[in-house]
């Protein structure tokens, strides 16, 4: 079965781990325990075109003091950059994360998850504006790990892009 690596990156506290938990075992916790290092989850994806296994690298978020460790990004077939719609500074970081991802795998497809869409937020960030940052960005979604909104869609999108590319 085709197995591949997808890396989740973003600032700390944006909900990377929550998105993974929602996608992998459909669970959610309100408690915030920041991830340290990287944890890897496996998800079998069934598709009429053929089943595949996604290995999800849930990396530690970038903070003022800790940059994202580049080694974690190596060998990825795709990236999901996560930002928090309620914290503008995490949206500003998307550009920097994108640059880092593409410096490691320059032709990798990238999905952007604007997470915590269930919370009150300002809509001033235009999805088109983010999409224009790079042709590698295949989709920009507003997600909610809390409600589960658009979570399967974003992982499904990155999966089908990677599968199509591999074929």
């Amino acid at each position, binding site marked *: 079965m085709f*197995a*591949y*690596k997808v890396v989740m990156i973003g600032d*700390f*506290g944006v909900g990377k781990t929550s998105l993974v938990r929602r996608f992998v075992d459909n669970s959610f916790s309100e408690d*915030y*325990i*920041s*991830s*340290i*290092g*990287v*944890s*890897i989850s*496996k998800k079998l994806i069934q598709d009429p075109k053929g089943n595949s296994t996604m*290995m999800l690298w849930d990396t*530690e*978020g970038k*903070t*003022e*003091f*800790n*940059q994202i*460790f580049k*080694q*974690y990004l*190596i*060998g*990825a*077939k795709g990236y999901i950059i996560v930002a928090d719609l*309620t*914290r*503008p*500074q995490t949206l500003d970081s998307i550009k920097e994360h994108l640059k880092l991802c593409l410096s490691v795998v320059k032709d990798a497809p990238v999905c952007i998850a604007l997470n915590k869409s269930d919370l009150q937020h300002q809509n001033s960030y235009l999805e088109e504006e983010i999409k224009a940052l790079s042709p590698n960005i295949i989709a920009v979604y507003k997600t909610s790990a809390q409600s589960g909104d658009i979570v399967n869609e974003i992982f499904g999108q990155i999966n089908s892009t990677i599968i199509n590319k591999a074929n």
Partner: protein
Amino acid sequence: MYTTEVLPLLSKKSRILYILFTKEFIVVNFSKELTLLTDKNTELVAGIDIRDIFWEFLGFEENILKLQTQETGSFKIPMIFKNSIYYDIEIEAFETQTKDEIFIAYISKKSEFSSEYLKTIQEINKKTLILQIDEVQHKKEENYYDLINKQLLSFHVDNLGLITEANAVCCFFLGKEEEALIGQHFSNFFHTRESTLKNTTSKIFNATSQQGHDTIFHADILAVKDATDVYKNIIICQDVSHLKQITKELEYAAAHDSLTGLPNQSKILEKIDEAIVNTDTKNELFSLCYINISKLALVNGDYGYHAGDMLLKHVASILDNFVRENDTVSRISGDEFVILLTHGKDNHSLDSIIERINLLPMKNPLHYTEDDTIHYKFNLGICSYPQDVNDSKALIDLAQKAMKKERKKN
């Protein structure tokens, strides 16, 4: 050769787990203790693809190729979290006697020290997240209060301090009709140290809004004569609660380093200024010891930023434990610390203190994992007041220069 009993023995002794595998990722041999890191439903046996059990190896294909062509010497992935255990993986290539190319992955578990460090980082991240969310919330509240302040809260009082008029904002804030306020003493709603407004043009009030929020107002007090020649006071209030709160938080953040919790450069400059005053008035001498950690960049590069941060926290902790009550340790930049050493009336003990600081790294190496110890050294620069220079910045510069000279020698 590699399947002899020597490798398991060495592994057990050095407490590093290992997996041997081919360039096709087929498992050849491994430490039996690796079952700690495998799922219950999977079994690690020779002959299977390592990527089926250790998912982290998926995506390493290009790096394995680089090891094979000796483009790189080794390849390391730090801080992998699995089954409640943190571990690092380091992969190297070697050639067997039969000219087979084999790869060895060393797997080293994190020590107890790491888990304390991890808890600190998680705590810092949690607090920072709350602060960031609060900041966004503050902004929303600021906008709300800005709207209120556009049309300022105001009320009038007579000579006795009884309210004679209240504007709509005042009524809205207190959740009362104007009629209910008129005739009441202002101090029933706006609390201040003295309940009189005589001989003053401004005051700070504390008041509670109808929603129960405690609010701090800066009040301008204007004494005016009305049409019947009777004096009254017009009070115009501006909400300054946010400024107070933000000032408090900023003051702490501006003076401390959040990783180590030590005072930062601006705080140590303040402390040095205080020490200068003490020397000039009470003849209490002091010195500065500027410390640079010799290998931080190497540690960051070889082990990852976590290890660098652990080393900084470790050094901060040993320095803080070493100094006396009246001394101050500060972190002033990446790998640089300054200690303000106070001496009382004489500084005869300075040389012995410096000697003991120099020995601290040797006595306290960083036990990164159960099996991996990180050694480091200090480069020190010393200067004393008032012998050398006479202001706080110049003292730090001088101590830094001395440290750089020392570093060059080493």
